[in-house]
């Protein structure tokens, strides 16, 4: 386990001593990471904002239980993931999604200059299909895929953040990618592999 940032340790201790401003600094430091973590899990801007803010509020209330000698974000992430999993479980069956499927994703080329209309449309369709396929993954597989693909974490970091062994990270990643490949294959986004192994 990595040792926590010295500043984080100081801020956590100050927050535990009742300094709300110190916790505010922690929130400012990690708000983007928390928001994007939630966005990857729920796929909606408004929900990600709500849930990540709620996670900080709960973290503040439970600040006495934070171990200052351990990294802060993995502790916060446990709250975020639990909130997001509960939210998706409670709402997936009856919530009417107001946001367009896949709208939480954008192209990596965004802002690099104008595309031709055809290319822009193609990219938009690809983004929607990839987003929709990720949204259909099982929550725990989706979580590991998002941390790897979008957060850019290494296996060891994912294992520490989620609190699972590295082998489980790799196995979940395999299942996630296999399911994703299947979805995108059906959508015609990726070509069929020559053979499928290890079924």
């Amino acid at each position, binding site marked *: 386990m990595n040792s926590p940032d010295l500043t984080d340790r100081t801020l956590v201790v100050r927050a535990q001593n009742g300094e709300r401003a110190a916790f505010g600094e922690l929130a400012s430091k990690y708000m983007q990471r928390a928001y994007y973590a939630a966005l990857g899990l729920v796929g909606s801007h408004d929900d990600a904002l709500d849930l990540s803010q709620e996670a900080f509020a709960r973290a503040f209330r439970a600040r006495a239980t934070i171990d200052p000698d351990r990294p802060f974000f993995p502790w916060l992430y446990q709250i975020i993931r*639990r909130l997001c999993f509960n939210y998706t479980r409670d709402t997936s069956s009856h919530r009417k999604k107001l946001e367009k499927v896949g709208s939480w994703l954008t192209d990596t080329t965004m802002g690099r200059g104008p595309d031709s209309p055809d290319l822009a449309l193609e990219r938009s369709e690809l983004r929607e299909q990839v987003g929709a396929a990720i949204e259909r993954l099982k929550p725990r597989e989706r979580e590991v895929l998002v941390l790897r693909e979008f957060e850019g974490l290494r296996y060891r970091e994912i294992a520490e953040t989620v609190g699972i062994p590295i082998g489980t990270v790799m*196995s979940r990643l395999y299942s996630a990618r296999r399911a994703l*490949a299947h979805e995108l294959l059906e959508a015609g986004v990726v070509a069929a592999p020559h053979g499928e192994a290890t079924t």
Partner: protein
Amino acid sequence: MTPPRGSTGAERLRQLMMAAVDKEITAAEQVELDAAIADDPALAAELDGFRRLRDVTGTVRRRPPPPEVWDGYWDGVYRRLERGFAWILASLGATVVAVWGSVRFVQEVLSDTDAPLFIRWSILALSAGLVILFVSVARERWFVGRTDPYKDVVR
């Protein structure tokens, strides 16, 4: 389709393929994977499929929110803390008032000699039922819920 392997071996190959796709494979693991691929060419095709998938997912990233979201972020957290405290106070107050009002109501009915006996017994039964329900739910929330090993299972 590749013939099924023993679960341990198959699981190991899956993990090695992921490590190869994500460039986290060690030299020793690469040798192990190469040997497995030499035995089973279908593995090479599957690995290639995962690499192409990686190329596709690499073309998208999470959409950033409007920049002003960050300016008001902590205010949003603070409002939640404030409202959480307000809700606790309001709930406590409402509970005390409701319990006090209920006790007074029950006392009134029970002491009313004009009220039929079956009404007084019904009030007693209602009160006892509500108390038992409250204790049961509170016990579940505070004790069972905290020790339930399956509470985080996504069904």
